[in-house]
């Protein structure tokens, strides 16, 4: 075994001694736990090939120009071998290049899981402090890796600047149970802890449904919350599944191909249409009264420019506000004449009656 001290706790080891099979930890790979995986060296040819995702090509280009800057994480596996903890792509690159040594950070001893988790928490501390969703993902990752809950409460939570309490752990695990695309959406949008926790209370199928249509919609954190909340309430109120709601509620049609439409519908327009449909479904009484009032308002205001009639949208108050613009005294005379016509008075009277009904 060839091993050389690199700096402080970092060493250099032969790539051939590192085994990636059964490697349990990989936070950088979006925290997916590595399944049984035999390290397959990347050949120089394959590095540039189209089969690699752009991010990996960029990594390889960076490795080509600067070498391995961030040490691989390995654990002692006995008999002079090492188990790869993190850095599979770097290892493949090194093997493909035929390197004799790679820098590693070595974990030894009994507290392997805890040491690795804490090392990773430290390495990613800035991102973890910034993003509640990422924090939740990391805590789930730590538990998946075998960190027991008591250790997580006593040691990991304080390391993440969280209070050392079982309920804090539970809340983060609740967030971590959100569908992965939604969690990464939360990371991307910097969604707050409270909002993430709120999302965790919604129906899983609903969340999956929305995330599957993410590209067809223009979602901000608050719009997403509004849509999920309205759909969740409709499902609860009418005891519907997500499939039943979208087909019965006229939502499905918004996501079908434009077909006969004269022009493609943009994601912003579709979002606006979805919100409108949901508002009407969610507030049937208010929507129907508002429609009646709007029709009456049109009658009352037709041909009287500069007049606005409005009412309390919640219908809690029963009065109408009538506003008109007066620049000359003749405007006032014209307004009073026109609004005093019987058909207009009838329309305003009908509006008041509707508000009081």
């Amino acid at each position, binding site marked *: 075994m060839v091993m050389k001290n690199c700096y402080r706790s970092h060493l250099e080891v032969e790539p051939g001694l590192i085994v990636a099979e059964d490697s349990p930890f990989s936070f950088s790979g979006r925290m997916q736990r590595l399944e049984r995986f035999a390290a397959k060296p990347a050949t120089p040819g394959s590095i540039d090939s189209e089969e690699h995702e752009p991010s990996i090509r960029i990594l390889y280009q960076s490795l080509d120009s600067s070498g391995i800057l961030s040490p691989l994480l390995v654990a002692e596996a006995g008999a002079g071998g090492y188990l790869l903890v993190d850095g599979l792509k770097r290892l493949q690159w090194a093997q493909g290049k035929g390197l004799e040594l790679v820098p590693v950070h070595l974990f030894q001893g009994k507290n392997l899981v805890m040491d690795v988790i804490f090392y990773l928490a430290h390495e990613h501390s800035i991102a973890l402090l910034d993003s509640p969703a990422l924090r939740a993902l990391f805590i789930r990752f730590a538990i998946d890796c075998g960190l027991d809950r008591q250790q997580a409460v006593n040691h990991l939570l304080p390391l993440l600047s969280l209070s050392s309490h079982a309920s804090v752990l539970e809340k983060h695990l609740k967030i971590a149970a959100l569908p992965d695309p939604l969690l990464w959406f939360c990371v991307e949008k910097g969604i707050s802890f409270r909002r993430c926790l709120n999302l965790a*209370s919604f129906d899983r199928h609903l969340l999956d449904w929305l995330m599957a249509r993410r590209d067809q919609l223009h979602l901000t954190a608050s719009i997403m919350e509004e849509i999920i909340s309205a759909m969740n309430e409709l499902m*609860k109120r009418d005891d519907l599944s997500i499939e039943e709601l979208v087909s019965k509620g006229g939502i499905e049609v918004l996501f079908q191909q434009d077909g006969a439409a004269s022009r493609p519908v943009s994601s912003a327009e579709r979002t606006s249409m979805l919100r409108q449909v949901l508002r009407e479904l969610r507030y049937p009484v208010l929507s129907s*009264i508002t429609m009646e009032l709007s029709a009456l308002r049109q009658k009352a205001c037709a041909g009287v420019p500069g007049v606005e009639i409005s009412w309390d949208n*919640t219908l809690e*108050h029963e009065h109408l506000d009538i506003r008109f613009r007066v620049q000359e005294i003749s405007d006032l005379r014209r307004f009073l004449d026109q609004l005093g016509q019987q058909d207009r008075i009838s329309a305003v009277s009908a509006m008041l009656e509707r508000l009081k009904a």
Partner: protein
Amino acid sequence: MKKEFSGITVDPELLSVANITVEQVDALLGPDQSAWKIAPSPRLDDYREGKRHLHIDCKRGELFHLCASLDTRYICCSTHVAAHVSNCPFECTYCFLQNYLTDTTLTLVANVQAVLHEIEAGIRQQPWRLFRIGTWELGDSLGTGPIATSARRLVEGFSGFPNALLKLRTKGALVEPLLDADHGGRTVISWTVNPDEFISREEIGTAPLSRRIRAMKQAAEAGYLIGLHFDPMVQFDGWQEAYKRCVQQIFETISPKDVCWISIGALRFNPEMKRKIEINYPRSRITAQEMVLGDDNKLRYVRPVRVEMYRHLIGCLIEAGAGCCLIYLCMERPNVWQAVFEDPPLSIGELDYRFAVSLKRRFPGLDLPDPVLDRYLTAAEGV
């Protein structure tokens, strides 16, 4: 027998400063709750955990005040409260306490005499007025054995007050500790009532309607006045029939003659509470109805729906012979009152006066003060 509490603490100050004896504490807790320790409140912050720990405390500061929900933009009943209980053993999905209490420990003030002294001093200042004083502001008045035992002392204390009625309000059925108390007609035991399909879904741990009705009958037979609170009144599939049945069930067992008042209030909560309910009770449907934000920052059903609900329930009550009772709306707008009643009160003061008039007329044996409208109106202006 299942242990009622995970822990019981008795505040050291209760024994040292308030001069309550160990024997008195034992008597309050009863034989099933013998294991308690002297310690300050654990000041629990988890809402559910707090319900399982009983802390026996001494009175701290003033407890007697006008109901905090009173809002002059609404016509409210201007009841007074003496909150000697904090938190509640029951778990109603709509309960505001889940978003209100910072110390969630179920706390009971044990030096009842001090509470009575404070109330007596307050009601003496307006001897012409009939005070209705509830203990339910932050919890159920008869939720557990020790609370009911403590309530008995309040009942006996109120029997000597000339111008006040004690309002105990519960969703339970624990009236036995009160049945042989010397109440002097000065206590109203009232129940929050709802159809069973709602109770079983949304009022976790409370007594089913049939048990509440049985307890009402026991209380009425013991000479107590009965109050009914259809509050929160809720909308669900078949609500009309369910409320009709609920009213029929009640008045098949008790007589409207024993009922002094009936309140009705549609479900309402503030927007933060809505979130809380959705997180704490994801299966609950109560937040999924069509609601709007009122002037008091509370979400309610839309006005036409509320009016329909109130008219329907009042119709059921009249049909059941309860039209003689004082029926009133809780925290409602004047325009809703007008849409529901032929002759609604025009102000908070007038409603307060109507309580006094109704009780004086219907229960002359109570020897309550003669109500004078102007005094009630003037007093309400100062709110």
